[in-house]
């Protein structure tokens, strides 16, 4: 299948779903607050329909498939997305600094497993420590953001 059709389909269907949902919601609002969303959500729907129509028309055109072209990213990227979500959820539980520390160690080790030997590992720990100290100086010490803390800091 033509990979760019795949992309168009995704963009079109997502736009249709998102625009349609907000269009449906905005019809139910009262006058002054619905004017602008109504305008924009209906144009979102129109644009996504256009994209879908063009992608159907283009279906027969043959394009040489190239690498890295589908919608789905590599497995590694999906791991990173999942670990980012876990990291953000952990902040409330463990506290910002400790979960950030674990995040650096964990993410850097899935990114390059061959750095798991002792020396590079110590380097990773040290550099994440220095980085977090820098974050501490700016955000906690100077700006005094009330950084969330959980069980640890």
């Amino acid at each position, binding site marked *: 299948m033509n990979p760019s059709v795949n992309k168009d389909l995704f963009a079109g269907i997502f736009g249709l779903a998102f625009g349609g949902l907000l269009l449906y919601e905005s019809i139910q609002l009262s006058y002054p607050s619905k004017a602008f969303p109504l305008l924009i959500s209906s144009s979102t729907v129109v644009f996504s329909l256009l994209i879908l129509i063009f992608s159907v028309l283009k279906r027969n055109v043959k394009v040489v498939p190239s690498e890295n072209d589908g919608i789905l990213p590599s497995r590694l990227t999906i791991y990173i997305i999942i670990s980012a979500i876990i990291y953000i959820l952990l902040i409330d539980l463990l506290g910002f600094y400790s979960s950030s520390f674990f995040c650096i160690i964990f993410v850097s080790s899935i990114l390059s497993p061959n750095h798991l030997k002792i020396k590079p590992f110590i380097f990773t720990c040290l550099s994440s420590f*220095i980085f977090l*100290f820098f974050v501490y100086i700016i955000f906690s*010490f100077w700006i*005094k953001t*009330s950084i969330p803390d959980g069980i640890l800091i």
Partner: protein
Amino acid sequence: MKHFRVANLGLIIILLCTGILLTFFTGAQAAFPEKGITVILPFGPGGGTDMLTRAFDVYAEDAFGHNFIVNYKPGAGSAVGTTALKKESNDGYTIGMGSLPHMYLQPASGSGRYTLDDFDYIALIASEPQLMVTPKASPNKTYAELKKATQGKPGEMTLGIPSPLSETWLSYHIINNKENLGFTVITYQGGGDMNAALLGNQVEAAMTNIGPVYGEIHNLNVLGVTSTERVSFLPDVPTFQELGVDVVTSVERVFMAPKGVPPERLKVLREGFKKIWHNPDFQERVKKMRYGMKWIDGEDVRSYLEEEKEAILDIYEKTVAEKKK
């Protein structure tokens, strides 16, 4: 390369020393408050509430031993910040500024998910009336002229207010209920935005607080003020009561904490703020900024608010019901 390593080592030692010193300092004190109190402001930096809080902050070290940590949570005309304060921990280290009549109107409209019950009140500190103004170029230089101009053409003239569901919204609608002015209300995004429209002659009148327009007040016609007495630095502006319209409104600011602060800590907070507010230096400072000040002790704030709330919600229901028609 060797220089690099020596420099790096030096840096690390300095960083470690700072770290140790920091832990040392934070561990040293006792008794509430052990650290700076966080004040959540429901408006952005640079506005009137910011400057008022900063004025308190100048004297915070005398009263509490620490400066405040000011946290801005703007959005939805203070609804975001006030709702967020409700969810903060009630250990006394997080307090916030609340605005009235916002705190009556927002829960009623659904934008603020809180009630007056969600907070312990520290003090009511400020109160300011609203002004009705027209641009200098306007032919309507007094309230009587403006009222005459509006009659017989409902909805054709425009009146700007700086934010939705705020004190200016309320004061215009109270006047309108009594006088039937019938302006089309234009809601701007803040005082600066509305002031620009006023000076650029884009609207025919405006209802505003004193702060945003005071700097250019010589370029405007001030028709009336919604207080019981004339404002000291605007001696020529009549009150609406003098003009024969019985309207008294104001925007009031309170300091408050999430419900359930331990009584002894609440007492420290109330007494600290009382001390700052009654400091002559502080009063001198806020006078320079032309702030309208008012004091109600923390114990009495709640009953005062309940009284006000009833009357204001009555007006809100009427106005909204009329609009729906």
